[in-house]
């Protein structure tokens, strides 16, 4: 799978080592270690409260770790305050300065760096062109849509040529259509400038779509860090398997490195349980064949365009979801007896 499509020379490596953050009784981060290659976009994905935002805020310097180290480009930044870290950040909440025009917002960081007026305007203008808002330079934040405001925020963060770009759920306040547009735009811009980027989100589609690697977090630590396709096809833990994508939970019997699922032998992934357990099987790995002697019956057929989702019920009442080409699925009717087959792709088997 693609790994780091960006120009690696433009970015700096980021090392978070054994970060722990304790708030009173709560361990928001519990020994998080994360390495970002130069120019790479890593998404941190997880349910709310998993520590992903805390990790980003610690990298930004807006929060202090209870213990652990933050290094960027080989320099220890653990005790450096936020305003001296040179990190561009886009927030979930709209954060444009309301009393400044768009161009002044973008130029603010440059002004603090004492760049002269002409250089400032040129750079800020370039950044606005990069996010496609060049002609809105003299507007105020309240004259822009939410998506435009977040694009200006991105331009503002990039104007200072940050060592690291931090995106803290920048899309979650936007509506669905704008969200998809902007996420593609963020990725395009990130590849263009080549800045090492940490993207925090709770939306797995977002994470899988834009990141070089996705880190799934749970209860303050990293469950798995892998390219999106690996994360999906080879989850390392039960949490990842259940959190990322849709899975059928089917009874399985593991012997050696083979599991018997629905009467068929399927290879198992490393980290699987032994003996009897539950296999996590993706809907697209299940095929449905009309068969009077089959072990299941079709319950519903849901048309989703080129693909359809077919729900079948086993004799013991277990629901199995299969994703089929619509041309195959539409031959099936609710009530039909069918045989279910599991493709021989490796599955994760968890205990219980």
């Amino acid at each position: 799978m693609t790994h780091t499509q960006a120009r690696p020379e433009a970015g700096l490596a980021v090392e978070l080592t054994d970060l722990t953050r304790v708030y009173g009784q709560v361990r928001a981060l519990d020994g998080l270690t994360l390495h970002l290659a130069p120019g790479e976009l890593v998404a941190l994905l997880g349910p709310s409260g998993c520590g992903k935002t805390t990790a980003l805020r610690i990298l930004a310097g807006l929060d202090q770790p209870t213990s652990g180290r933050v290094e960027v480009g080989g320099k220890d930044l653990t005790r450096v305050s936020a305003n001296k870290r040179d990190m561009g950040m886009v927030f979930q909440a709209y954060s444009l300065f309301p009393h400044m025009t768009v161009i002044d917002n973008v130029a603010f960081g440059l002004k603090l760096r004492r760049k002269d007026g002409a250089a400032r305007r040129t750079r800020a203008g370039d950044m606005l062109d990069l996010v496609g808002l060049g002609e809105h330079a003299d507007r105020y934040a309240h004259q822009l849509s939410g998506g435009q405001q977040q694009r200006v925020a991105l331009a503002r963060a990039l104007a200072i040529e940050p060592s690291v770009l931090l995106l803290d759920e920048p899309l979650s306040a936007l509506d669905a259509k704008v969200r998809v547009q902007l996420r593609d735009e963020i990725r395009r811009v990130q590849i263009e400038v080549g800045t090492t980027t940490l993207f925090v989100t709770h939306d797995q589609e977002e994470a899988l779509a834009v990141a070089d690697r996705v880190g799934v977090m749970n209860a303050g630590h990293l469950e798995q860090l892998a390219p999106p396709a690996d994360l999906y096809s080879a989850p390392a833990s039960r949490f990842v398997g259940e959190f990322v994508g849709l899975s059928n939970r089917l009874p399985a019997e593991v012997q050696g490195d083979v599991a018997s699922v629905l009467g068929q032998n399927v290879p198992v992934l490393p980290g699987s349980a032994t003996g009897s357990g539950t296999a996590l099987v993706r809907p697209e790995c299940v095929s449905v064949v009309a068969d009077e002697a089959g072990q299941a019956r079709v319950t519903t057929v849901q048309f989703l365009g080129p693909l359809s989702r077919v729900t079948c019920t086993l004799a013991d009442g277990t629901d199995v979801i299969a994703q089929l080409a619509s041309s195959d699925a539409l031959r099936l009717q609710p009530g039909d007896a069918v045989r279910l087959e599991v493709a021989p792709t490796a599955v994760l088997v968890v205990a219980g």
Partner: protein
Amino acid sequence: MKAGGGFRIVRAVLLGLFALYFFLPLISMANFSVQGKGPLKGTITFHYYAELVRNEDLRSAIISSLLLAVLTVVLMVVLLVPTMIWVRLRTPGLSRLVEFLCLLPLTVPPLVIVVGISNVYTWVNYLLGDSPQVLAFAYVVLVLPYSYRSIDSALSAIDVATLAEAARSLGANWLTVITRIVLPNIVSGVLGAAFITIALVLGEYVFASLLHYDTMPVALAAIYKSETSTAIAGGFASIVVISLLLLGLSFFNRNQAPDVGGQKE
């Protein structure tokens, strides 16, 4: 909803009554202050307004009060604005306590405060002299509840925490965050607090009188018996000035009111 005819009549009557209640005394004051008395009897004259600046004592009292108002505003802004911003940004846990402290002066009658602080003022006079401007210390406390409310609502209207973090990530230190990011966005609230402070200081009598300072209200009260028309002229003039300030404030607010939230795409 469309107002019915009956409702409209009731509304007009109520508005009329209120207008009468508020404006009758003002009109009477205005009228009284321009009616000539004694040798000027029967003429319309601004003699008594001229008297406000011609009378040595009165003039110095008015100047004292204006200075006092400016000083109180400055002290209030310098103390309250950074404190409130800091509490909001760094120690939100203290916000309840600060609010309680700021509202406390409302609950204690001014007379009680005066009795309490008169001893303190012996020392203040000893250390700083006895010009009326030292009253600014007491007046800052007196205006806290109103100033606090005004600034607090302005701070609530913006996302101070996010704006501050955005500015910090761009390289701003705390001083820059406060002066260049937060302050420009709460100007209307700070101006409101300032105008209310001026209004309060120009009308305050109890403190000044009991602590023996000659401010404008004290001086006007002193001449009320002997030169009633001048006293009334002074009172009316200060009401007009304060009303204009407050009117200016409401216009300022209307022009400043930001369009909250982004428009739809």
